[in-house]
């Protein structure tokens, strides 16, 4: 028979683990209410509680911190990159999965090799190119960076497409449907969960990215920055004692929508991440 202490022990272990995992997040949340602007190194909980940091975050942009502008920039970049890269990924995955054309294997191998090159390095060259085009420090330049090469990320979705029975495809062809019709009328509706997963990923990728922005944006004007760059800058030595609570507020504000999205998407995520792997 099951021993009750074993079951209790199991839950105690889980609770301890969850506690460890949630400490930093809990600290983030309580610090947003701290009246002390810098880092409180002596106490976990703030000594005086206030909502002033949130007011500052939303309504008092200054020369170092401009959360509304950062949020707007990140949102625009996220939405447009998401639209473009979702399309690219879906199109590439479909072509590689369903259409037998000359040079298909070659292209796929080539794309794998390309993917192994460190992205940071090619982005350095991209910086020069964008500079020539006058697109550095601009939202457009970042959208190009995030979405341009997104076609390379087709593997997971292709893995899913590969599980759609090929007979379905052939039957539709016999009925006289063109490839374009099959794409819109059969494959896209069948793959809704995976497409939702792709879309969300394409949005989160620019939303959570730090390194590209750091390379591409050299502007000293905070209203040109995105959230990643702005929040990073607040923790520099000269600013951290004035803006740590502000940083925590900002961090929490961008985390809330994503966390909710993640919790809802858990199921899709599990399917999406494993779908490609399981199906080889």
């Amino acid at each position, binding site marked *: 028979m099951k021993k009750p202490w074993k079951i209790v022990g*199991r*839950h105690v*272990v889980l609770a301890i683990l969850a506690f460890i*995992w949630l400490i*930093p997040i809990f600290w*983030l949340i309580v610090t947003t209410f701290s009246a002390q602007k810098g*880092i*409180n*190194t*002596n106490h976990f909980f703030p000594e005086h509680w206030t909502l002033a940091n949130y007011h500052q975050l939303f309504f008092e942009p200054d020369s170092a911190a401009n959360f509304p502008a950062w949020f707007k920039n990140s949102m625009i970049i996220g939405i447009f990159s998401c639209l473009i890269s979702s399309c*690219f990924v879906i*199109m*590439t995955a*479909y*072509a590689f999965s369903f259409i037998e*054309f000359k040079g298909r294997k070659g292209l796929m191998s080539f794309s*794998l090799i*390309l993917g192994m*090159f460190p992205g940071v*390095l*090619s982005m350095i*060259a*991209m910086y*020069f190119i964008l500079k020539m085009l006058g697109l550095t420090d601009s939202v457009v330049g970042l959208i*190009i960076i995030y979405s*341009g*090469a*997104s*076609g*390379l990320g087709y593997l997971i979705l292709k893995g899913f497409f*590969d599980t759609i029975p*090929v007979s379905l495809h052939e039957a539709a062809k016999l009925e006289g449907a*063109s*490839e*374009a019709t099959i*794409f819109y009328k059969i494959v896209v509706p069948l793959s809704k969960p995976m497409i939702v997963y792709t879309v969300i990923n394409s949005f989160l990728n620019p*939303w*959570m990215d*730090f*390194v590209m922005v*750091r*390379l591409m944006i050299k502007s000293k004007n905070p209203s040109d920055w995105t959230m990643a760059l702005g*929040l990073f800058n607040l*923790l520099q030595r000269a600013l951290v004692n004035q803006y*740590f609570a502000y940083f925590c507020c900002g*961090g929490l504000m961008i*985390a809330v929508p*994503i*966390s*909710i*999205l993640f*919790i809802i998407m*858990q199921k899709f995520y*599990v*399917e999406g*991440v*494993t779908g490609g*792997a*399981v*199906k080889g």
Partner: protein
Amino acid sequence: MKKIGNYFKDFGLAIAHGDIWVKLSLIIMGAGYFGRKQFMRGILMTLLQVGVLASIFGVFAPYMSKLNTLGTVQREEIFDIVTMKKTVNNYDNSLLILLYGIIGILVIVAFIALYIGNVKAVYRIQKMAEEGEHINSFVDDVASFKNDRFHITLLTLPSLGVILINVIPILFMVCIAFTNYDENHQPPTYLFTWVGIKNFVNLFTTSQTITFGYAFVRVLIWTLIWAVLATVTTFLGGILLAQFINHEDTKLKGMWRTLFVITIGIPQFVTLLLISKMFGDNGIVNTFCANVGILDFFKHIGLLSAGDAFIPFLSKPGWVHVSIILVNIWIGIPYQMLVATGILMNIPSDQIESAKIDGANKFQIFWKITMPYVLFITGPSLIQSVIGNINNFNVIYLLTSNYKTANMAMANSHAVEPDLLITWLFRLTNEYSNFKMASVIGIVTFVICAALSLLTFSRMIGGDKEGVYR
């Protein structure tokens, strides 16, 4: 090789056996289509030819002619006393020469391929006409892009994006590795030029003035240790946690999972920066450790000397390496837990049942059935995640952005102890404008990743398993 031979043989045949229209299309690319009354296609092809040739001679040729030297005329400003204005001479910009040179070469290669393909296509149409087959009208051609040539419709834009954002920059940076482009040779003020494999030699050199060899070995070893440890710890941890949560005795499975998933929802640049402040020299964790006596305990067992006022979690070699691995476990396990949950749900339960009947205990089941199954499925993706960790920029850079090294030989080559190849490369460019060495390091990283990928390559493409599950 045979394929390449055939490619040119077909081209020769087309010229030899083609009629006047095919031969004309050697000069005017649209001519062959005019001959078969495909006027629209002919006009478009001719326009394309004119446009490409104009751009090659008008835009790219002046740059390409200077590719061998990357420019010879340095920028000079002359102050004119009469007009009181500065005038600038007609100087060369090495950066533009290299960039336009590369793009020009790509355009020419693409144009030659198009040219040969065009002649062959025209010849094919000639044959079809001779045999009285239907020749596509322009409307048919357009329609074919929704059908036979749908892959072209689908892949054109993504491919263009990849060429612009990936291929050209990669070629460009590979070239930079063979030049002397660094802080002392920055266009437009200064020129840079080809130096052969000198930079590669420097990377493996350790001498009085050059310490790249010293730093490189250390950074490389740490990169490899990090990649393996980071992958293995999070992978095993993720499976164990998923097993633990999925166990039949666990109540409220969804809630536990959600608690861990919340940590993925916060962007890494927020959590990592936050953690770097928590574990800072004067951070809250150090305050806590001093208060409960952990600091004294470490001093007692000799991990810290008596004079240390804090635990250098993120500021001393050794400490920082351990901290990074631990923080990465914190970051990585929830994600791996999600992946593992998906895989564990699909484990064939009959195997586990029969093992149970045969009297296997839990550990035997885990190591003999669960793990082999999980490894079988995730094997290729494991190597992929080792590669991902070699290029894992965020964890290292955000945790150690304020790290200062005490090792002069490292500092001399602008590396710090916790650097991976990728963060070293980043520091070299972003803070020191040393593009030549950054490119060399990038190429070395690529070679390492490519070698690792060869292990999975055959499984992903060569041993085509696409059809098996259909």
